């Protein structure tokens, strides 16, 4: 502050000297006017200084309660990258990696905060935007948890209230989740609501995950969970004496350059000299002080993504808590944070110990044959793929951070079969697929990477490159690619075609699987994860075009009554993709009575549709006539408790 005032005074005095050296009464008069202006300027400066100082102090106070940017290890943050890499900086800057975690500010918060009141389990949450700050008036959850720890259950509405400032947020693409500071250190606790961006709607956090509604709402702590993947080089840093007090540091709050390229300090120091830089630009050399994932072999390159996009286990827990992950791009991820592969690691001690603590750890993340089933874990799928194991497929074979649109970050020209025929040059696509060229059945992705992964309120392509198999569908419950497009067809139909076209072994199927559509059976009898996938595919345009649309509404209407909020959400979105239901209104977090009404309304609209495009008993389309069977199937529904850990 002192230097500012000194400079201010020096410049001002230097300017005033020539004025007051002027001669004559009239010039003195002008000089006095100027002096007046100067006094006003000084007063304005003093007021501005006071405001800036106060703002700075307040900001400092708030920042103390938030995870801090800046940590040892040679990290410099993306701040320093733009000067030399403007194009890469710009493409990263518009990506959703950058905004994975942000401090709460008007430019980052997209949710509505003005005079919003939410309710959850009988408690009210009032949101408010105060100038640049975001606040929640809410029940004091610290107090409530303390009471519960003493065995006292506090009735709804009796918890004292507290005002909490929202300090951070996660996400900017599909939804935003919010965090407020805990009682000590810079611990961040999850606010129990998330904001769905497409719907512009606040929903309870539990209803944005595929989670058994009967399970208690978990208390989310950002510092030892989300920090692993949603920041760059995070260090949880709990206090040794009291592990609930944290002093979390990160290299950068979002996922930034150094997450993929490694710490940049040495790279910057090496390249300060412009002559060295010009020499380098005109040589074929590689800067060894920084990593370019595109230049690594396919395994090490994919591990750069896999450090976050994988289910991993942390062998040295204490060290990770204190220092963060020791993995750096270019190194072997398996040496520090191995990726969990159920097929390979099933008998390992760490898996057994994990399952003792959490029996559903594997089933919450994998299908029973070890294929990953949740979003954000694409590396698990890739590592099990023959193209990776026997070929050179890597993440950057199809994705690009710096030459792609922000959605999915598929590299240019990789939306089509171009990605696959680079290696599979001899394939004649239509001949291979037995589908018309340029149809959805001839898009490699649709058969070999079907949408059997769930996350972010949608089905996502599996990244384990695989071929459709009825045997696998029967054993694991995972729908196969054929029946996810041909929603109206049975497993027997699929099996017959796979046998005829590809020599697949015929599969023993139940009478039910022979008689009825696989998708219809899963929609009624499947577990919540299966129901969500089917509900999504009922809104998927290629599936609607092939399978017909007019028989789908009763299923989607049925799923509006599903006990899982996310299944209802996905079903509603698919229902609204049908022409007759575009204006259908339903609040997917409403209670059982509203859900039943929504189901009935769906059927009313559906019954008015003439010329249904499917009449086969395969899809139970004659609703009235086959009601008994429908009810029977619902009674057989797999109601196992699920919580897909996306």
């Amino acid at each position, binding site marked *: 502050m002192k*230097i*500012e005032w000194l400079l201010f005074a020096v410049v001002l005095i230097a300017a005033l000297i020539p004025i007051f050296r002027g001669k004559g009464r*009239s010039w003195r008069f002008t000089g006095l006017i100027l002096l007046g202006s100067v006094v006003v300027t000084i007063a304005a400066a003093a007021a501005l200084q006071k405001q800036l100082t106060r703002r700075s102090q307040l900001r400092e106070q708030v920042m103390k309660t938030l995870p801090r940017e800046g940590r040892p290890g040679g990290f410099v943050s993306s701040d320093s990258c733009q*000067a030399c890499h403007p194009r890469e900086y710009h493409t990263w800057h518009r990506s959703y990696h950058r905004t994975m975690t942000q401090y709460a500010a008007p430019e980052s918060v997209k949710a509505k905060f003005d005079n919003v009141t939410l309710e959850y389990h009988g408690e009210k949450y009032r949101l408010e935007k105060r100038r640049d700050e975001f606040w929640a008036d809410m029940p004091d959850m610290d107090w409530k948890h303390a009471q519960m720890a003493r065995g006292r259950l506090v009735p709804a509405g009796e918890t004292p209230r507290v005002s909490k400032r929202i300090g951070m947020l996660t996400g900017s693409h599909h939804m935003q989740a919010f965090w407020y500071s805990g009682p000590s250190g810079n611990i961040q606790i999850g606010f129990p609501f998330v904001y769905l961006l497409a719907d512009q709607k606040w929903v309870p956090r539990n209803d944005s995950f595929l989670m058994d509604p009967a399970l208690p709402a978990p208390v989310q702590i950002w510092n030892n969970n989300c920090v692993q993947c949603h920041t760059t080089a995070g260090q949880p840093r709990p206090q040794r004496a009291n592990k609930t007090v944290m002093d979390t540091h990160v290299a950068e709050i979002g996922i930034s350059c150094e997450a993929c390229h490694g710490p940049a300090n040495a790279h910057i120091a090496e390249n300060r000299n412009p002559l060295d830089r010009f020499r380098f630009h005109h040589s074929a050399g590689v800067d060894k002080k920084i990593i370019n994932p595109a230049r690594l072999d396919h395994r090490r390159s994919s591990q750069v993504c896999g450090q976050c996009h994988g289910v991993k286990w942390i062998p040295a827990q204490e060290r990770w808590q204190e220092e963060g992950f020791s993995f750096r791009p270019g190194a072997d991820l398996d040496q520090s944070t191995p990726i969990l592969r159920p097929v390979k690691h099933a008998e390992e001690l760490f898996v057994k110990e994990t399952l003792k603590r959490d029996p559903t750890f594997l089933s919450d993340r994998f299908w029973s044959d070890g294929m990953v089933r949740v979003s954000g874990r694409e590396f698990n799928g890739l590592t099990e793929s023959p193209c990776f194991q026997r070929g050179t497929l890597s993440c950057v074979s199809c994705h690009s951070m710096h030459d792609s649109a922000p959605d999915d970050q598929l590299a240019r020209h990789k939306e089509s079969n171009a990605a696959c025929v680079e290696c599979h040059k001899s394939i004649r696509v239509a001949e291979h697929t037995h589908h018309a060229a340029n149809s959805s059945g001839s898009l490699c992705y649709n058969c070999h990477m079907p949408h059997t992964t769930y996350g972010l309120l949608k089905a996502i392509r599996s990244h384990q490159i695989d071929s459709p198999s009825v045997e696998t569908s029967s054993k694991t419950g995972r729908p196969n690619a054929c029946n996810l497009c041909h929603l109206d067809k049975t497993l027997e139909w699929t099996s017959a075609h796979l046998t005829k076209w590809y020599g697949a072994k015929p599969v023993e199927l139940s009478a039910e699987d022979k008689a009825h559509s696989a998708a219809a059976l899963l929609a009624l009898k499947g577990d919540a994860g299966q129901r969500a996938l089917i509900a999504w595919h009922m809104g998927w345009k290629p599936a609607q075009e092939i399978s017909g649309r007019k028989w789908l509404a009763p299923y989607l209407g049925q799923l509006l009554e599903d006990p899982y909020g996310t299944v209802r959400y996905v079903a509603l979105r698919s229902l609204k993709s049908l022409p007759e239901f575009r204006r259908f209104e339903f609040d997917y977090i409403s209670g059982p009575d509203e859900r039943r009404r929504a189901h009935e309304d769906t059927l009313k609209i559906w019954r008015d549709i003439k010329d249904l495009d499917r009449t086969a008993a395969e899809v139970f389309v004659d609703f009235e006539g086959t009601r008994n069977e429908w009810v029977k199937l619902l009674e057989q529904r797999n109601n196992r408790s699920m919580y897909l850990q996306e």
Partner: protein
Amino acid sequence: MRRHLKFGWWSLLFFLTLGIVLEALHALKVGWYLNVSTATRRLLWTLAHAHGTLLALVHIAFGLTIAALPSWNARARNTASTSLVAASILLPGGFFAGGIVIYAGDPGLGILLVPLGAVLLFTAVLLTARGASR
């Protein structure tokens, strides 16, 4: 006239030197000038360099204008002259000082000298224009 020619050429030298310094900061990729978080400083020092250089040229032009207007009213001429000198210190000086200590997207206190300088520059140019019109 001589005063302005002297002031003009010396301040031109000074601000051209500043420009060379700023270019060197680019060449050497100096973080406190080029980082994203210091964009405000980069903008303000660029403005300081630009205004200082241009005002130096204005001084040279003013010096030549005085020689070309021997009948220009002395009082108006002296006021214009002093205002121009003061503006030439306040404008680039204010920009530069405002870029030394910055507050994220906001400049430091020095920026408040810029409007003062702008008023003085306006006064100088107005008086010169009037003098040239008579």
